[in-house]
C-alpha cells in the first residue's frame, strides 16, 4: 500500500510535469527578432521593396515549438526555484533571463550542444512534441559549475534521452487546446532494462490544428523517438533516433491601423480564400531527424567517460509569396491602406472600401491565378509561392572524461568537433497556375540598364524556373568548430571551488553556387575561410555556511566568434564580410545567496555582464537608397546589471506561497558604428555612428515579478494560481532613426525625440491557473493499475488582449522624416489560452 502511494505520487508528479509542460503558452519568442531577415527580391516601380520584417521570422521560435520554453526548468523546481517559477509565466512577454541573446544559453542532448553554430539558436522544433521522453533534464543557470561542459553565461540545460533513464511506462495521452494546434495524441512505451541489459523506449506523437483563434491557422506535426540501451559490464551503449516532421502556418505582426480596419486584433494578412477554401501564404516546415550514438563508461567511482557521435540531416523552410512585374499581393501593403493617403477624401474612400469589402484585407488567390494565366500568353508566373530553404547536415563528436583525482578533487576534460554544413536557397513551390518564372533579380533591373546585373546566376543566364527548381540565391556555409575544455572542481568542507577553461577554434567558409550578376567576382565558389580562436575562463567559489545557507561568487571572461550571419554582410548574394574582424568579448560576475530550509526557500542572485565588440547585420529596404541594404553594425556593447530573486514558503503541508522578482538595468553602453552595403552595389557605401548609448535593450521585460499560490493535496489534487506583472519593455528599434542623418528631413519644430525615443509597451498583469487531478481507474491483479490523469491549464485568465511584442519597421521614410509612414508592428496575444489533457497510464 505505501508503495502504491509512492507510485501514485510519482505518477502524479510526472503528470504534473507533463501537464505543466503542455500548458505552456505558444512558445513566445524569448529571442530578439531574428536578425538578418532575408529580404526578398521584389520591387515595385519606385523600388519599394518587400522586406521580411513584414513577416519577421520570429515564428521559428514563436510557433516552431509549443514546448519551446527557453528554460524547461519546471522539472528542476527543487534545483532552481527562480527558473521554475518564472520561466512559464514570464514567457508571454518573451522574458529572457538576464536579457541575454540565444547564443548565451546552451541546450545539449547527450552532451552535444544543439545550438546552431550559424545563428546560435536552439532548434527546439527538432525534438518538439516528444514531451513524454524529453523530460530528463538538468539545468545550470548562470555560471554554476556542471560536470559536463563549460557552461554558458545564461544557462545550460543538459538533456539525457537514454532509454534506461526514462521512467518505464505505457501511456496514451490526448490534449485539446485553443493554441495553434488543437489536438495532440501521443503514445509512449518504455521498457526498463531487462536481464540481458537491453532497454527500449519508443514514442510517437501527432499534433493537428485547423483554425482556432486564428482562422487561418494550420498545424500538422508528427514526431517520433526510438531509444535503445545496452549495458555491457561497465559500459553503456545507447542509440537514439528522434525527429519531428512539422508544417504549420506562421503568424505575422500587424500594425494598429490594420487592427482598427479589421476590427480584430486577431487579424492576419497572410491568407486568403482560394475557390472558397482558406489558403495560407506563410508556412513553415521542419524535419531534421537526428541520431545519437553514445558510449558511457564508468569505472569504480574514479573515472567516468562519455563519448557521443551525433549526426543530423534535414531541411527546414519557410514559404512565402513572391512576385515579379505585378502589383504587391499582400493586402497589408502600406500603399493599400488609408494611412498612406494625405488626401482625406481619398483616405476615407479607401477606408470605406475596405470596410465594405473585408475580403480586400486578405489575399485574393483567385485573382493571382487569373493573372498568372492571362498576363502573358506564355503564362509566365507573376506570382508564385517559394520556399526559403535551409538544408543542413550536422555532425559532432564529443568525448568527456571525469576523473576523481582525490575524493574532493574532480577533473573534467572535454573535446569536441562539430561540422555544420548549411545550404541556403529558394525553391519555387507553387507557380499558382503559371507555367514558369525567370531567375532574375528585378531589383537590379533599374540600376544597371542592359547589363547582366539582373541575372541571379550568370552561369545560367535567363533561366526559366519551374516548380521545385531553385531560384534567387544558392550558397553553402560550412562551419567547423574544435573545442577543448578542462575543469577542476574542488570540494572543501566549507568551500566549493571550481575553475574551467575552454578553447575553441572556429572556421567559417561560404561557397556560392550562383554567380550573382551584381557581384560576379565575389559570389561564386568557395570564399577565403576565416579562423576565429577564442578562449573562455570561468571560476567560482561557494561558501557553505551550513547545510541551509550558501553564498557564492562566480566570474567569467570569454570571447565568442561573431555569428556567421553577422560576419558575412549579405551571404545570399556575395561573400563580402565585415570590415574588421573582432570576437565578441564578455565579462560576467555574479554573486548570490541561497537559503534552503524546510519551510522557506530563498534565492537571491545579482549579476553584472558586460558584452563588447558585438556585431550584427540587419537587412532591410532602405528608402534613401531605394534599395535593399545590409547594415553591418560593429562594436555593439551592452551592459546587463540585475537581480533575480525567488522565495517559496510552505504555509501548510499542502499549501505554499511563492514569489519571484526580476529587475535590472539592461542597456547599450556605447555608440556602435555601422557600414552599409546595398545589395546592388559591390562596395561599402556609407559608414557612421549609431547614437544609441544608454538605450534600453529591447524585446523582454526589464522588470517582472511573480506571485503564486500552489496547492498540492495529499490526495491527487494540485492547483496553482499565479499573477505576474511584466513591465518596462521596449520594442526593438530601428537603428536608422538613431543616426545623424535621420533628422535631416524632420519637419521643422519637431522635437528630435519623436524620432529617437524608443517605444515602450504597456505593462501587463497576467493571471494563470492550472489544475490537475489523477485517479486510478482499475487495479489489476498483478498489482499494476490504470491511471487517468487530467489537467487543465489556463493562461491569461482575465482574457485580456495584449501586445506580446513588436518592432519598429526597419524601413523608414528618410525623405519625409515621417515615422508614421511605416508604423510599428505588433504581435497580439489571443486572450485566454487553455489546454486540457488526459493521460491514460498503465
Amino acid at each position, binding site marked *: 500500500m505505501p508503495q502504491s502511494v509512492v507510485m501514485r505520487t510519482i505518477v502524479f508528479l510526472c503528470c504534473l510535469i507533463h501537464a505543466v509542460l503542455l500548458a505552456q503558452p505558444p512558445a513566445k519568442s524569448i529571442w530578439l527578432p531574428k536578425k538578418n531577415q532575408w529580404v526578398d527580391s521584389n520591387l515595385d516601380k519606385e523600388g519599394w521593396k518587400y522586406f521580411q520584417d513584414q513577416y519577421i521570422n520570429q515564428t521559428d521560435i514563436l510557433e516552431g515549438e509549443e514546448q519551446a520554453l527557453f528554460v524547461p526548468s519546471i522539472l528542476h523546481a527543487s534545483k532552481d526555484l527562480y527558473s521554475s517559477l518564472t520561466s512559464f509565466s514570464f514567457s508571454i512577454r518573451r522574458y529572457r533571463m538576464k536579457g541575454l541573446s540565444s547564443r548565451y544559453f546552451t541546450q545539449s542532448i547527450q552532451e552535444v550542444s544543439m545550438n546552431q553554430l550559424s545563428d546560435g539558436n536552439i532548434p527546439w522544433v527538432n525534438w518538439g512534441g516528444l514531451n513524454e521522453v524529453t523530460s530528463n533534464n538538468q539545468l545550470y543557470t548562470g555560471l554554476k559549475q556542471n560536470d559536463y561542459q563549460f557552461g554558458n553565461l545564461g544557462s545550460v540545460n543538459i538533456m539525457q534521452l537514454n532509454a534506461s533513464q526514462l521512467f518505464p511506462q505505457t501511456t496514451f495521452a490526448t490534449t485539446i487546446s485553443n493554441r495553434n494546434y488543437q489536438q495532440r495524441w501521443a503514445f509512449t512505451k518504455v521498457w526498463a532494462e531487462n536481464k540481458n541489459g537491453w532497454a527500449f523506449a519508443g514514442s510517437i506523437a501527432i499534433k493537428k490544428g485547423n483554425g482556432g483563434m486564428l482562422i487561418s491557422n494550420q498545424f500538422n506535426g508528427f514526431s517520433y523517438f526510438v531509444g535503445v540501451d545496452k549495458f555491457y559490464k561497465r559500459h553503456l551503449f545507447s542509440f537514439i533516433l528522434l525527429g519531428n516532421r512539422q508544417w504549420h502556418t506562421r503568424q505575422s505582426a500587424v500594425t494598429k491601423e490594420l487592427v482598427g480596419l479589421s476590427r480584430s486584433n486577431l487579424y492576419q494578412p497572410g491568407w486568403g480564400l482560394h475557390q472558397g477554401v482558406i489558403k495560407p501564404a506563410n508556412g513553415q516546415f521542419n524535419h531534421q531527424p537526428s541520431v545519437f550514438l553514445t558510449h558511457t563508461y564508468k569505472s569504480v567511482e574514479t573515472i567516468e567517460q562519455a563519448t557521443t557521435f551525433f549526426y543530423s540531416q534535414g531541411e527546414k523552410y519557410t514559404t512565402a509569396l513572391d512576385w515579379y*512585374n505585378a502589383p*504587391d499581393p499582400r493586402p497589408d501593403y502600406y*500603399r493599400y*491602406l488609408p494611412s498612406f493617403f494625405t488626401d482625406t477624401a481619398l483616405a476615407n*474612400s*479607401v477606408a470605406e472600401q475596405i470596410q465594405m*469589402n473585408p475580403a480586400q484585407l486578405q489575399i485574393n488567390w483567385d485573382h493571382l491565378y487569373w493573372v498568372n494565366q*492571362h498576363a502573358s500568353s506564355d503564362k509566365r508566373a507573376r506570382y508564385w509561392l517559394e520556399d526559403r530553404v535551409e538544408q543542413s547536415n550536422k555532425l559532432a563528436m564529443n568525448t568527456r572524461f571525469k576523473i576523481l583525482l582525490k575524493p574532493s578533487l574532480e577533473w573534467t576534460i572535454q573535446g569536441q568537433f562539430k561540422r555544420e554544413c548549411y545550404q541556403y536557397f529558394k525553391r519555387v513551390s507553387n507557380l499558382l497556375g503559371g507555367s514558369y518564372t525567370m531567375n532574375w533579380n528585378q531589383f537590379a*533591373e533599374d540600376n544597371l540598364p542592359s547589363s547582366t546585373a539582373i541575372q541571379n546566376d550568370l552561369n545560367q543566364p535567363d533561366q526559366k524556373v519551374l516548380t521545385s527548381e531553385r531560384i534567387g540565391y544558392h550558397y553553402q556555409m560550412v562551419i567547423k568548430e574544435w573545442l577543448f575544455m578542462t575543469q577542476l572542481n574542488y570540494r572543501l568542507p566549507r568551500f566549493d571551488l571550481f575553475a574551467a577553461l575552454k578553447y575553441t577554434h572556429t572556421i567559417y567558409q561560404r561557397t556560392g553556387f550562383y554567380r550573382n550578376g551584381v557581384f560576379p567576382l565575389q559570389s561564386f565558389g568557395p570564399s577565403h575561410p576565416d579562423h576565429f580562436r577564442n578562449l573562455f575562463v570561468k571560476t567560482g567559489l561557494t561558501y557553505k555556511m551550513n547545510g541551509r545557507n550558501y553564498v557564492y561568487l562566480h566570474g567569467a571572461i570569454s570571447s565568442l566568434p561573431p555569428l556567421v550571419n553577422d560576419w558575412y554582410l549579405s551571404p545570399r548574394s556575395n561573400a563580402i564580410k565585415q570590415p574588421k574582424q573582432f570576437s565578441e568579448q564578455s565579462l560576467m560576475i555574479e554573486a548570490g545567496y541561497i537559503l534552503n530550509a524546510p519551510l522557506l526557500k530563498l534565492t537571491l542572485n545579482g549579476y553584472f555582464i558586460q558584452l563588447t565588440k558585438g556585431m550584427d547585420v540587419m537587412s532591410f529596404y532602405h528608402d534613401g537608397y531605394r534599395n535593399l541594404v545590409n547594415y553591418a553594425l560593429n562594436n555593439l556593447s551592452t551592459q546587463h546589471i540585475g537581480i533575480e530573486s525567488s522565495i517559496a514558503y510552505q504555509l501548510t503541508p499542502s499549501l505554499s506561497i511563492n514569489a519571484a522578482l526580476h529587475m535590472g538595468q539592461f542597456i547599450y553602453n556605447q555608440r556602435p558604428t555601422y557600414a552599409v552595403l546595398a545589395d546592388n552595389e559591390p562596395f561599402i557605401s556609407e559608414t557612421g555612428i549609431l547614437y544609441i548609448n544608454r538605450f534600453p535593450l529591447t524585446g523582454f521585460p526589464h522588470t517582472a515579478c511573480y506571485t503564486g499560490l500552489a496547492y498540492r493535496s495529499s490526495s491527487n489534487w494540485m492547483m496553482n494560481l499565479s499573477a505576474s506583472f511584466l513591465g518596462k519593455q521596449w520594442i526593438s528599434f530601428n537603428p536608422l532613426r538613431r543616426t545623424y542623418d535621420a533628422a535631416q528631413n524632420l519637419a521643422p519644430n519637431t522635437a528630435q525625440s519623436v524620432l529617437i525615443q524608443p517605444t515602450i509597451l504597456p505593462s501587463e498583469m497576467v493571471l494563470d491557473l492550472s489544475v490537475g487531478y489523477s485517479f486510478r481507474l482499475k487495479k489489476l491483479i498483478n498489482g499494476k493499475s490504470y491511471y487517468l490523469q487530467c489537467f487543465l491549464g489556463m493562461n491569461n485568465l482575465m482574457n485580456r488582449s495584449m501586445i506580446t511584442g513588436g518592432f519598429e519597421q526597419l524601413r523608414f521614410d528618410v525623405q519625409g522624416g515621417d515615422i508614421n509612414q511605416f508604423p510599428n508592428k505588433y504581435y497580439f496575444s489571443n486572450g485566454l489560452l487553455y489546454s486540457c489533457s488526459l493521460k491514460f497510464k498503465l
Partner: protein
Amino acid sequence: MKNVLYSMVILYFVLLACACKQQLDAAPPYTGTSLKVNTSIRDLYTSHIPGNIERFINNEVITGIVTANDENDNFYKSIVIQDSTAAITVRLDGFGLSAIFPLGMRVMIKLNGLWMGEYGGMLQIVGSVDRTNPLQADLMPLPAALFNRHIFAVGLQTMPSPIDIRYNQFHDSLQSRLIRLNQVEFAAADTAQPYSDAINKITTSHSVKFCSGGTIYLRTSGFANFAAQKTPSGNGSMVGIYSIFGSQKQLAIRDTRDVQFGNQRCIQTGPAVLLWEDFEQFTNNQKLSNAQWQNLAESGQVFFQIQSQQNNRFVSISALGTGQPTTTSWLVLPPVSLSQVKSPQLSFLTKDQFDNGASLRVMISTNYDGKGQPWKAKWTTLKANIANGSSTGIAANWTPSGPINLNNYAGLVYIAFKYEGNDLNSSAAKKNTNFWVDDVKIIAQ
C-alpha cells in the same frame, strides 16, 4: 353534381400538374459583370470643358480595351483604354499593372466618383484632385485599394487595329488612340541613339519624320526597359499611343516591336525631301536660333520669332512695337544643293495679320557666302503666293505659296525670307504687318 365533381377532380389534377412543372426562379448563369455601358469615351471628350476638372456623378460607365500599360515601364502608373469612338488614359496608383490589365483586356469602368482633367492638354481619368497648390490642381491617380470598386474585367479580346494616320490628320480627337504612322523614319540626328536616358532615368524625345513632310516626337521614359536600345535608321511604320503635351505632338510606343523600320530611308526613293521644316522642334516664344538657320536683322533689330497657335509652331515677324523707321530682316534657310536633283520645288505657308503694307519676299541667291551678311550678295525674288490683305485681323487660313520651280538653279543655293517694314509714328506711313511662315519644304523628284 357529378360534373362538378369531375371538373373538381380534373381541376385538381391540372393544378397538380402545374405544381409539378413549377420551378424555382433562378438568375441566368453568371457570365460577367452585369454593368451596362451607358457612355462612350467620345462622350467624355465632348462633355469635357477645356481647362476644367470634372467629377463624375451620373453613374457613367464606359468600356474599353487596354491598348497600353506598364508592361515595359514606358507608361508609368497608367493604362490606356480605347473603345470604338475614342481612347483615354486612366491613371492608376499601382505598379505591375500589366499583370492585372494586360493588353487586349476589356474593362468596364464605373466612373462615379472619379475625375477627369487635362495634363498638358491630355484628357485623363484620375482618382482625385489635390488642390493644395492654388495655382495648379494636381491630378491624383486612383489608389490601388479602389481598383475593385471602379474597374471590372470583362475578358481578353482582340486588340483594336491601330488607325493609319497621315501627318495632316493629327487632331485632338486622336488623344490616347492607338495609331500607326507609315513611311516615317527617325531624323538623321536621332538614329542609332538610345531610345531614352536609362542612366539618369530622364524621358527623352526623338524626332520622327514623315517622308511626305512633318515631324512628330517619339517620347520614351528613362525607366522603359528598352530605353538603352538604339533607334533604327531605316524607314517604315510605327505604332503607338498618340498624345500631346502642350503644343507638341507625341507618340509613345509600348515596346520596340512597335517600330518596324525595315525599309530604306525615304530620301532614297520617291520625292526627295531636300529641306523640310515645320518649326515644331524650336522653343516657343523665342527668337529662332539654330546653327543651320540664319536669323539676321539688316536694320531695325527685328528677328523671326517662334510662335504657336492651336498647337502648331511657326515663325513670325513684325516691326510692330519697335519704333524703328525701317526694319529689314532676313531668315536664311540652310543651304540646299540643287546639283543632281530633278525639278526641285519650294513651297511654304504664310499667314498675315493686320496687313498695312510691309512686305515679305522669298528670294534665292547662288553667290551668298553664308557668312551672315546676305545683303551683300545678289538675290533674286522668287514668284510666290504670299498672304496679304488681312488688314483687320488674323487671316483665317494659311496661304500656300504654290510650287515654286527652282529648275533654273544649280549648285549650292541659299533661299531666304526677307521682311521689310517700319514702325513709324504716323499711322499712314506705318508698315508693320505681321507675317507667319510655316512648313517650308524643298522637294525634288
